[in-house]
């Protein structure tokens, strides 16, 4: 299986939505298999391939099932998150419901949030939100797809909580000193979506057109939504 690290479930109740880099400690301590292997996670890959071959040889698994599962994991895309954001920009009542309960509001748009709960945090002129998962790579995969590699990197995960403004600066965002920066560590059962500020100059835009301004990065909080250009 070429997909990274979905070899066991834990607190995610089978949602397969993070990779496993944390230290399990204790007696069965083992090195982290995934993550941070820009050079290629050779050992983990060998083990997973061997396991898959064994399962196939014993007729417990077919290769197509693996492929289908990978496809299922990789099919959600950023457009679903963008659709949620664009609706929130154009429909204040929806926005309130979204901030109160992200999962049920998303369901109104026929978007199924597979994770336990979705917490939506709103950027305003006074507050900027940034998402990370210091322990692994929890991410709202069912609405944003797979996370970018930098989100999984140890450097981002450590620095996003330790020196978040420096991280934002490297993404090209210099946050004014009077803005409150709220970092959300997605360490357990919640998943997070940033509701970015609506770009100026897009007041008359349709929901579909607005959705084109909503990037993956602005929903993680490392950038703003794209500027409106007609």
């Amino acid at each position, binding site marked *: 299986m070429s997909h990274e690290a979905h070899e066991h479930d834990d607190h995610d109740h089978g949602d397969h939505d993070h990779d496993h880099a944390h230290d399990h400690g204790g007696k069965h301590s083992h090195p982290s298999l995934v993550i941070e292997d820009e050079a290629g996670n050779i050992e983990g890959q060998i083990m997973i391939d061997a396991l898959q071959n064994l399962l196939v040889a014993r007729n417990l698994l077919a290769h197509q099932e693996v492929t289908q599962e990978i496809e299922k994991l990789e099919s959600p895309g950023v457009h679903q998150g963008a659709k949620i954001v664009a609706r929130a920009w154009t429909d204040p009542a929806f926005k309130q419901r979204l901030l109160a309960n992200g999962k049920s509001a998303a369901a109104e748009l026929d978007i199924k949030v597979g994770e336990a709960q979705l917490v939506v945090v709103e950027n305003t002129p006074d507050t900027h939100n940034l998402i990370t998962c210091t322990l692994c790579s929890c991410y709202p995969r069912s609405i944003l797809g797979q996370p970018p590699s930098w989100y999984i990197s140890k450097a981002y995960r450590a620095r996003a909580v330790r020196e978040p403004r420096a991280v934002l600066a490297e993404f090209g965002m210099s946050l004014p000193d009077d803005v409150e920066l709220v970092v959300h560590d997605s360490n*357990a*059962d*919640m998943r997070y979506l940033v509701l970015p500020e609506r770009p100026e100059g897009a007041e008359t835009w349709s929901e579909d057109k607005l959705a084109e301004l909503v990037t993956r990065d602005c929903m993680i909080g490392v950038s703003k939504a794209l500027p409106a250009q007609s």
Partner: protein
Amino acid sequence: MRGRFKVGDRVTVLELNKAGHIRTPFYVRHKTGVVVQDCGLFLNPEDLAVGITSGPVVKLYRVQFQQRDLWPDYKGAPQDTLCIEIYDHWLEAARTTARKSAPKPASKKKPATRKKNEPRSARA
């Protein structure tokens, strides 16, 4: 089970010295913050990781900290904060009084001098 804390309560993260699949990172242990959300009940990941899927369930809270409290040399703006999810058994009521600039949701900060529930550690 009923949660011991409510939104606005000041809480301190415990050091339970547990091994295993722990979702409480070291950087918040011994730190004091404010409960900003009661997330409901969840199966304890510490149990799930070792195949115990029958519970008991535990309360999960979102707790907000001042960055300056987490990192004494924090270089960002003084009002910056961090929110993280902490399971009930990793928390105790804060013993110290609120600092001046507590996070916003702590609208009603009472000096939490309530008798401290001694942490019943590891309920697993």
